[in-house]
């Protein structure tokens, strides 16, 4: 865990993200807590995904290659427990902290403008943490399957960009051919999108709200199952 969050990488990243995020919401008079939190968290999510690909995925592959994971697995702990600790330490905690810091800076800076919508800000934060956890759990699954530091880093970044492009492609195709389900599927691949629709009283379906949490649960279960049953130490 300390390996993932060790200084100065995380510190430099959060200082930059918090500063830029706070600047983003002050160069224009953002009076909506929903818009302010989206503006800050959207750019932070991009940086979080890259951080998870490097520190989460490639970092875990390095543990496998160096034999450190062998030592962890030799402890009198169930493999699922070790896998869950790795998931929390390499994905959940970094995602939560990286996304939280710029949001706190922006909220403190805009003060009373945003205090009236703290529930909305919290809801958007949870949506972004879920989205980052989905990315991170996919990255960990890649790492334990390929077990190579460079390959898992590259494949994680590729998976992230493929997923992001897929959202745009599905929304585009759905709009072009007039297929509402395809368009909604593209929108639903981003939970923050649907959360934004929900808070804006815009049209969305319940399955859209459940898609990313559902995908996250499936990916986490796949990762835990792989680690407990099929993962073989080098």
């Amino acid at each position: 865990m300390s390996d993932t969050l060790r200084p100065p990488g995380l510190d430099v990243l959060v200082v930059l993200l918090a500063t830029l995020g706070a600047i983003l919401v002050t160069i224009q008079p953002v009076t909506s807590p929903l818009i302010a939190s989206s503006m800050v968290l959207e750019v932070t999510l991009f940086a979080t995904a890259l951080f998870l690909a490097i520190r989460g995925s490639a970092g875990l592959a390095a543990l496998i290659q160096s034999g450190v994971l062998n030592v962890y697995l030799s402890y009198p702990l169930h493999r699922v427990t070790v896998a869950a600790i790795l998931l929390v330490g390499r994905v959940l905690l970094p995602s939560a902290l990286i996304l939280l810091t710029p949001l706190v800076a922006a909220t403190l800076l805009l003060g009373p403008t945003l205090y009236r919508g703290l529930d909305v800000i919290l809801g958007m934060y949870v949506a972004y943490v879920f989205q980052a956890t989905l990315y991170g759990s996919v990255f960990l699954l890649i790492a334990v399957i390929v077990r190579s530091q460079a390959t898992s880093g590259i494949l994680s970044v590729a998976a992230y960009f493929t997923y992001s492009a897929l959202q745009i492609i599905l929304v585009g195709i759905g709009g072009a051919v007039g297929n509402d389900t395809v368009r909604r599927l593209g929108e639903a691949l981003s939970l923050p999108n649907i959360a934004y629709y929900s808070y804006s009283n815009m049209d969305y379906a319940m399955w859209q709200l459940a898609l990313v949490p559902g995908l996250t649960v499936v990916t986490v279960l796949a990762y835990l199952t792989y680690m407990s049953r099929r993962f073989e130490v080098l």
Partner: protein
Amino acid sequence: MSRVLSHLTLTSRLTIAVAVALVISSIVADLYGARLESTYSNTVPLSPGTSLFLGVAGLTSSGKVKIEVEGASNAYYVKLSGDPFMLVQQLRALNLNISASRPQFDLRAGVAYAVAIIQASPVIVQALSLLGEVIPAVQTGGSNVLIEVNLATGESVVAVIPTALEPTIKVNVSYTVEGYSRLTPLQATTLSFTLLLIVASLETLRRRRSPASTTS
């Protein structure tokens, strides 16, 4: 730097990051940040049988719009909760001849303006009634009308001047942002120092309690 940071708890490191961000961003905001006032004016030649369309959209902010029109006896407006510039495309779909100017964005005030000339005076007011309640503007003089409306974030106002009394119509729009505040550089610096002081106190206490403890 790495050695110093490695002696601090994770909470302290993140608090320091917030403190640094507050100072820098408040200075940038003071120099280049949001403005609470925005104005727009345009003089448009209007021939008989044409109407003037004016859209003002609160993109990221909420505030008060004041539209003064010179050279018209009456005007109507409607509040929308979407992009008013889409209305131009919808009216084009009705085969109305429209010449629209490029929208002008005032990013620092979070507002956008656009005007369009539409050939079909009575139809345009009827078309507006399909979108919402059409409200007549207040007459303030012989050929002057005034529209004052409050906009929430994402809302916009569309004003239509169906007929002109003079060859040209002059519109003056002023927009005042409401409900926005941010820390001044002095307040942000004070808050940052307070946060740093709290971090220093907590770290000192932690070390006194457990001298061997260094990292989180």
